[in-house]
């Protein structure tokens, strides 16, 4: 959803889950790209393929006034040790993934028969560890599932709320 920057408070969970899933999709994309290029020796624009790394950062989600013309519902409040009922609203934090290019010279491997071997017979390979990428992939899939479950739960809760009005 090209969610409006300010989401209806009702839909904050949807937005959070959506952002989480998008972030995990990007992570999987990076892992897939790294795995696909694990043996690449020629990169566009020269040099070697540089490993993709994904970092996550928080994004503020600002609750907008409710579109039903009423004042927005109060935000959930977190308890602090000093004041067990803190009155400061704690807004939810979304997530955003950024893909970074790893620095590095690559790994030199002795393969004199390789067409891209240098004068000494070494080939520069990207610094991609297939094992690590596989773990990243699994983790991304599981995290995606977790976000999807959070979304489904929120949806079920809303459906249950709507059922209250029946009959």
């Amino acid at each position: 959803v090209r969610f409006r920057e300010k989401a209806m408070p009702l839909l904050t969970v949807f937005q959070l889950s959506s952002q989480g899933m998008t972030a995990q999709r990007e992570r999987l994309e990076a892992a897939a790209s790294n795995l696909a290029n694990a043996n690449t020796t020629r990169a566009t624009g020269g040099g070697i393929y540089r490993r993709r790394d994904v970092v996550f950062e928080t994004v503020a989600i600002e609750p907008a006034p409710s579109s039903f013309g009423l004042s927005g519902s109060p935000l959930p409040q977190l308890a602090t040790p000093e004041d067990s009922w803190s009155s400061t609203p704690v807004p939810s934090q979304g997530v955003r993934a950024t893909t970074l290019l790893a620095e590095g010279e690559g790994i030199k491997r002795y393969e004199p028969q390789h067409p891209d071997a240098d004068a000494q017979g070494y080939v520069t390979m990207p610094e991609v560890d297939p094992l690590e990428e596989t773990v990243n992939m699994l983790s991304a899939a599981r995290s995606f599932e977790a976000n999807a479950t959070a979304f489904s739960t929120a949806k079920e809760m809303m459906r249950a709320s709507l059922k209250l009005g029946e009959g």
Partner: protein
Amino acid sequence: MSINGINSLPPLQPLAEVTHRSLPDQATGAAEASSAADSFGGLVRGAVEALDRTQREAEQEIARAVAGESPDLHRTIIALQTADLSFQLALQVRNKLIGAYEEIMRMQV
């Protein structure tokens, strides 16, 4: 013997005009004082506009997904679910309003 034409009946007055005239001045003043957002009409309009917005967003997302522009399938589905839930909410509100209206209309005067 002649029968009066139907046209001779007084024409129907617009409802708004009638209520306006029959209401005491104080009540109309109070009604005008309340802002559009607080009025019942404003509330309904806001709800319908919000519903319309979610439906249009879902439409846009589907168009993007079908055109292959959106890399995130889940966003399309979430837009659809959002539109559906908003519609269900609006439907519930509408059902309640109609129910209350019918209840009032059934009252013996």
